[in-house]
């Protein structure tokens, strides 16, 4: 068990280095540099050149790369050229918002999709299954932004049940119970909406798993032992059917931590996804590279998490 985890950790080191190199090359390939935007008819070319020299933009690429990498190890992600604050603090604020929204989304999403998948698999081809299939097709086919805007319009504007933007009400002191309530209130609508249209994969994997496992030989063996049907389902069929869900769990979690650009933009929710889009719009390269690097790391950690989870559940994955 621990060998599997250790091995996976070691594999991550070269992966991270390659990732950082790719991100660096990507950043260098982007047109212009942070000072391009400062140029106006009155700007002194000498001053720009001095700034470039000062920020080390004239150094050889590999010097820049090692300097950047060295800074990363100290947790220094650089300073946002646009907002003039350290990128790390900029990301931290947004990451907290995104974390809570994602957590709520994941809970609602699995809360809906696992019972639906179980019901569809158990009642294969019956009305329960067919209605769930219809729900699946609809939610899978609707583009996210259409669904979110419709939801925003209906529950935000027309019915006026939920706030339509932001992460906290104006004038609420942070750290109080009221602030917690206000945050939750702002998250509920986006969380429900994005949970509703991210159920498809889980439902389908679970349903197919149950339908396939139901006719497996080991299920017949369990029945031949005189195990009651309810236990056969929960202990034998369901557990084996949850394997594919478990293997996606890690990437689902970290994927959501990256934030959803669409939902955060539609709801003007100050999270990571919106920060990413804003940074692109403002050519805020330091923030952008830091975010791309972070998303990359999240993906790697997600895979690691998935592998650990699956090796806990499935003995066949473990290394002796």
């Amino acid at each position: 068990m621990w060998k599997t985890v250790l091995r996976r950790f070691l594999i991550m080191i070269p992966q991270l280095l390659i990732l950082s190199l790719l991100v660096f090359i990507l950043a260098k390939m982007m047109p212009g540099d942070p000072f391009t935007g400062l140029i106006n008819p009155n700007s002194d070319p000498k001053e720009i050149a001095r700034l470039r020299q000062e920020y080390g933009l004239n150094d050889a690429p590999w010097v820049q790369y090692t300097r950047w990498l060295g800074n990363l190890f100290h947790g220094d992600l650089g300073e946002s050229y646009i907002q003039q604050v350290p990128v790390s603090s900029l990301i931290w604020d947004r990451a907290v918002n995104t974390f809570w929204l994602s957590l709520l989304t994941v809970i609602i999403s699995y809360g809906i999709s696992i019972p639906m998948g179980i019901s569809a698999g158990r009642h294969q081809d019956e009305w329960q299954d067919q209605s769930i299939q219809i729900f699946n097709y609809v939610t899978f086919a609707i583009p996210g932004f259409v669904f979110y805007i419709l939801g925003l319009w209906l529950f935000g504007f027309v019915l006026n049940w939920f706030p339509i933007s932001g992460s906290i009400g104006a004038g609420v002191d942070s750290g109080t119970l009221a602030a917690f309530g206000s945050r939750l209130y702002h998250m509920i609508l986006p969380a429900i909406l994005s949970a509703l249209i991210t159920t498809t994969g889980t439902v389908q994997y679970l349903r197919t798993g149950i339908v396939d496992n139901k006719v497996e030989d080991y299920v017949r063996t369990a029945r031949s032992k005189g195990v009651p049907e309810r236990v056969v389902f929960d202990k034998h069929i369901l557990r084996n059917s949850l394997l594919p869900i478990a293997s996606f769990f890690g990437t689902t979690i970290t994927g959501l931590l990256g934030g959803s650009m669409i939902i955060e933009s539609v709801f003007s929710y100050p999270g990571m996804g919106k920060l990413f889009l804003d940074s692109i719009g403002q050519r805020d390269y330091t923030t952008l590279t830091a975010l791309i690097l972070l998303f990359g790391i999240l993906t790697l950690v997600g895979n690691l998490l998935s592998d650990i989870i699956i090796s806990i559940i499935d003995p066949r994955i473990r290394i002796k």
Partner: protein
Amino acid sequence: MEKQSDLLLDIQHLHTAYRLQGDFYDAADDINLTLKKDEILAIVGESGCGKSTVASSIIGLYDHKNTKVTGDILYNELNLVGLNEDLFNKVRGNNIGMIFQDPLASLNPLMRVGDQVAETLYYHTKMNDKERHARVIELFNQVGMPNPEEMYQMYPHELSGGLRQRVVIAIAIACKPEIIIADEPTTALDVTIQAQILDLLEDIQRQSHSGIILITHDLGVVAETADEVAVMYGGQIIEKADVKTIFSHPLHPYTRSLLNSMPQTEDEEDDLHVIQGTVPSLKNMPCSGCRFAKRIPWIPASAHEEEPVIHEVEPGHFVRCTCYKTFHFQGEK
């Protein structure tokens, strides 16, 4: 009177029909069989002849929505046909144990093999955890597994095919069932392991005096282990006798063809005998006449009965249809 009490299972007029595109077709057609204590009854036939259907009907493991079972399967005073599931679960694993064909697929990949054996005990005995563990170790010893304590903690994929099949057998015999159904228990194993598993089955039977229904297509296995043999073709039993008679004095053309199809080492120059054609599929099974007639076209239609019935030609030797009287292999005579 004593003979009566030895009777474990009495199958009478068993029909098992599967639903195919709305209609039911008999996969087992009027099966009459008995199983006694200390007896190994072999059911032999090609793939699709209905032998596994008989097994699943006895233990009640079939898709209840698409299967219709009629007739009687009497176990003591209990009729297993149409028995309610809760009652059946008390019989399955407890009074009737089943051994399956593919030992890897037959075990839950996520459970330790010891726990899979213990699960049977959990539902049929009042043992506590410790007693169950001890019983599993005892069973592992009985089925000849080395280091039973260590084996208990293993997962199916860590064991060899032979060891997995021993686990499956341990599951089947955990509650000392009176009846053991072995559905092709050696088919998925290589030859040396096959012999070991068959020896093990015979050992178990000698110790427990249970009755074993051995389902196989392997005549070598039958010759080695069985006491009574029922040969099935097209969902029907076409010949039934004790093992000696079947091998020394087979009557039905199908039985004779099967035996003739076994490779003989003495006359190497001879080509292997092949039965013409294939078993008709369930939907295309002839509803009347001798079901084997199509595969022996050189035998005139007049040799067959119109509605073939079982004839007792000698005490204990049953044959369906009259075609056996005039049957000869192609090229003979």
